[in-house]
């Protein structure tokens, strides 16, 4: 009897739940989760050109709504944020298409982003500062659905600088999309084992890029935890030029030491010299930029301090900091890239290197004035 009562109770609960769920709305689900804005676009609207562009190029193509008018309720109320400027919203809308959506269309096929891409892109004018930790969020992916891009109002200061554009927007988008993809199909656990024991979720922002490269991370943020490591590895591999990528590998191959081991925020250095070339002096650590190299005819490379000589006019010899962490940073990074490469190919049929080549080609010489004409008319493909 007790059992019966229990089952009735359970069934009743199901029935009540079903009735309650069906009682409020009887709308049939349409092909898109967003309102049919096609019918609501007003030709007299101030934003008609951009809205039309977004309708044709995002909503209809990818079932994606591109939010450039920011309602505060769409963002975290814990941050102080401001909307994006209309002008920068146009620029980012066309650049996102040219440097991101069109790239995936070409490499992964036209259905790929429609199936797996984000459903909402939200532009935010300001950074999302966390005053307590001294950090700022440059991008945010929520549940594989929504990607928020911050600092849009600063964009016009570096619109023609691909490095900065990548740092704040497109690297962020690749990063966040990598999250969306691995939240859909998980990547091999092997990735998480490569740098296990070297992540620091609390103090990653205090690490230096050389220090973390030597540990096998492409950025300081990558060293915060393995999921961020995975997204950062993919994103940086795609957007970094060959020179930038090789610099990361070079830093990863060197030894690094802190000027003050008791201070977690102190800077890290890879080179040092002895005053007056006297090795009995305390070593003085110097930045990479203060080192210059001379290669002998026999190929031997000598490193010297750029700024001064000793009292006799001899160049000051520069020494490499010993790599004591026991990790081949470059090998670790390349190992991670290989796992990501295989996973993208096997799970998603996406060729990471083709993706990278296409991005590199496009970001090398985009013409923002022409791209804006996608919205205003007269775009020259």
């Amino acid at each position: 009897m007790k059992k019966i009562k229990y089952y009735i109770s359970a069934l009743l609960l199901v029935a009540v739940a079903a009735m309650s769920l069906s009682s409020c709305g009887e709308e049939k689900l349409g092909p898109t989760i967003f309102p049919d804005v096609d019918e609501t676009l007003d030709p007299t609207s101030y934003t008609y050109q951009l809205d039309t562009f977004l309708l044709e190029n995002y909503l209809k193509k990818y079932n994606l709504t591109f939010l450039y008018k920011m309602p505060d309720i769409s963002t975290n109320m814990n941050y102080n944020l401001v909307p994006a400027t209309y002008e920068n919203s146009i620029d980012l809308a066309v650049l996102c298409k040219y440097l991101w959506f069109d790239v995936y269309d070409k490499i992964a096929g036209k259905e790929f982003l429609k199936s797996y891409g984000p459903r909402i892109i939200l532009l935010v004018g300001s950074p999302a500062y966390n005053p307590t930790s001294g950090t700022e969020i440059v991008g945010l992916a929520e549940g594989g659905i929504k990607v928020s891009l911050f600092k849009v109002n600063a964009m016009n200061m570096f619109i023609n600088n691909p490095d900065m554009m990548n740092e704040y927007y497109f690297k962020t988008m690749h990063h966040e999309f990598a999250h969306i993809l691995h939240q859909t199909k998980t990547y091999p656990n092997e990735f998480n084992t490569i740098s296990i024991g070297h992540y620091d979720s609390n103090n990653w922002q205090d690490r230096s890029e050389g220090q973390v490269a030597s540990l096998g991370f492409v950025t300081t943020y990558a060293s915060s935890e393995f999921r961020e490591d995975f997204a950062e590895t993919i994103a940086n591999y795609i957007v970094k030029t060959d020179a930038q990528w090789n610099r990361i590998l070079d830093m990863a191959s060197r030894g690094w030491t802190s000027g003050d081991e008791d201070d977690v925020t102190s800077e890290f250095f890879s080179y040092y010299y002895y005053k007056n070339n006297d090795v009995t002096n305390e070593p003085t650590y110097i930045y990479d930029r203060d080192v210059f190299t001379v290669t002998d005819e026999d190929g031997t490379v000598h490193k010297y301090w750029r700024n001064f000589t000793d009292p006799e006019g001899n160049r000051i010899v520069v020494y490499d900091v010993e790599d004591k962490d026991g990790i081949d940073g470059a090998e670790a990074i390349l190992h991670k890239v290989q796992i990501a490469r295989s996973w993208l190919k096997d799970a998603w049929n996406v060729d990471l290197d083709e993706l990278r080549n296409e991005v590199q080609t496009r970001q090398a010489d985009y013409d923002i004035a022409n791209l804006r004409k996608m919205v205003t008319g007269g775009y020259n493909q």
Partner: protein
Amino acid sequence: MKKFLNISLLSLVALSSLMLSSCKNEIDEIFDEDAIARLDNKKAEYIDILTDKGGKWQMEYYANADEPGYIYLMTFDKNGSVTISGENQWIGLLQGKNFGAIGYGSETSLWDVITDNGPVLSFNSFNKYFHLFADPEDIPSTDTEADDETGYGHEGDYEFDLMKYSNDTLYITGKKYGIDMIMTRVSPNVDDEVYMGEVIAMADSFFNAKIPQVYINLPNGVRWIVKDGATSILKVFREGADEISTSETYNVIITHDGLSFMNPVTLDGYTIKNFIRQPDGSLLCRDDNETTMTADPLSSIISNSRLTWRADLTNIGGVYAGFLPQIASELTAYNKSTLVYIQLAYVAAKSSFAVTFNVKKGATKINPTYYVTLEPQGDTQVKMTVGEGDQAGELYATKVPSMRAFADALAGTFNLSANSLLAPVNMKMEQGNNYIIWNIQ
């Protein structure tokens, strides 16, 4: 377990009745339309209100409870654009001016009435002259680490719950920080820059840092002293009370027609908030139509030993105007010097007021001075007597006789008037057709 199941069943019955009845029945009994339709109607109604009659509004904007309020002019277009104009020190900073220097700016951005729990006026694209108060960047006026506002900024709102509309006035509340503000309709023919300039002129006519204090005059005859008016964060304390231990600070906004406290203020049982500028430059409380805000009488201000005045030599009348060319001619003849300014100020070393003629000869400045007395006669008259000169004064009395004659002509009783009773920084002293306008330094 049995008891649990009984409770469970009862709960389910109760829950089901609640769920089944929650969606529609109750609404049908109270409202003609469902909530969404009512909200949509309200949204459309507010869009019509905002864009009606030319769509131009004055917003009395407060970023937070610790800063003055600022006026913005907003012209709403049905196409979704809004032109926002302002003139304040923060815009001045954006324009590269020194801290404290005001600047005027106007920019077009986007707006909408969105629906949340109710209709919300949202300025949903960035307008650099308006959203500066919501921007989380460090406030540029403060550069010490302790004053790093990164992540906070001014913490101002740009989304406002639309609370009420009445008599061309919109009552709004900042959505994030909850400050109540108002918007009032303005004629569409108003030129934004001219209007904002008039607001700034209004502010200048109320408070000047050189005028040490003004007064709130309550209907019961008690005066409350107001200091720091020029900052728009007023320090207020009862006359006769201790300033340090009893004063309170209140932030105000200077509007196109007067002054308003951010929140109502109660002094001696009288609650005041909004003041309207009167033709004489004083302020009258709109709430009780009795309380006023005035400064000391003009006769006290002109004879305040802490103030320094200079004659406006381009706007001087009667005999005084006649003396100027004579002085210039005699100075040239004597030592090829020129008159730079005439000053009225207190000379502490002599415990006396004095009229000083600043004369420039090459790089050398000479200050022939004649000591005077200033004696207030009622509120708007002052009696001046002229005495001996200092050494330079006596020398120039012989070499430039018109200078001494000018000083002597200052003897007598003068009527006083000013540009504003609250901030009389331009004081007219006249006797028949003879007048001098003294500008405060």
